[in-house]
């Protein structure tokens, strides 16, 4: 299942629709990086509200996405991690260190706008 990537001004929004396989996550990583380059995006929001499980592979891929995008001078924010998914991640010992997270899409957008308002 492909993850749709939406362009919203200077930002990109990727919304996870359902349970994603490793291949889906890898193609998301490729797609996001390509589009960040193509549109010269300043920020990326990855909405994981629908994600059923965040295991070691998924969290590593999200971290890699955020770090690659940072090397392009853009910022990533993960939004919508469900409380039970967050609980399982902590039990498993997973962290999203160095990656911004926000409650939902609205707060994610607010975070990016705040981040870039002084640069423009």
């Amino acid at each position, binding site marked *: 299942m492909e993850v749709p990537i939406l362009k919203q001004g200077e930002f990109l929004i990727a919304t996870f629709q359902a349970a994603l*396989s490793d291949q889906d996550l890898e193609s998301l990583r490729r797609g996001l990086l390509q589009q960040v380059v193509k549109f010269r995006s300043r920020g990326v929001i990855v909405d994981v509200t629908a994600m059923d499980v965040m295991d*070691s592979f998924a969290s*590593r891929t999200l971290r890699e996405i955020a770090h690659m995008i940072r090397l392009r001078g853009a910022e990533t924010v993960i939004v919508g991690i469900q409380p039970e998914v967050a609980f*399982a991640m902590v039990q498993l*010992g*997973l962290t999203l260190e160095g990656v911004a997270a926000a409650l939902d899409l609205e707060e994610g957008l607010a975070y990016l706008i705040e981040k870039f308002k002084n640069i423009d």
Partner: protein
Amino acid sequence: MNPRTARVAIHSDQDIVVARQKGRALAAEIGFSAVDATLIATAISELARNIVAYARVGEIELRTIDGPSREGILVIASDDGPGIGDIRQAMRDGFSTSGSLGLGLPGVRRLMDEFEIASQPGKGTRVAVKKWRQ
């Protein structure tokens, strides 16, 4: 109560998703909370991931179980892969030989209530974990 069982053959990363979804559904069916169902699904995901990473093929078996006072779920991950030489080392946080995060087994033990592992080099690995309904 008659135990309910499901088996998922693990051959690829797609099967990881199938296994954890079946596990979540089974957990929900016997009354696990959303939080516990997610913990179980996450543990299944890691166990299936280990199969794909180390043994390439294997199986996840799911079974409802009756305890003295409550129901639970048993998850057995088995494969005929290379096996684990040093189980104590594999159970330490941060240890991995596949370039993964190395959180798999110790993480799974934290997610579940009971954890058993049997493995021998060249003879595959069998991990059995249980979680009881609160």
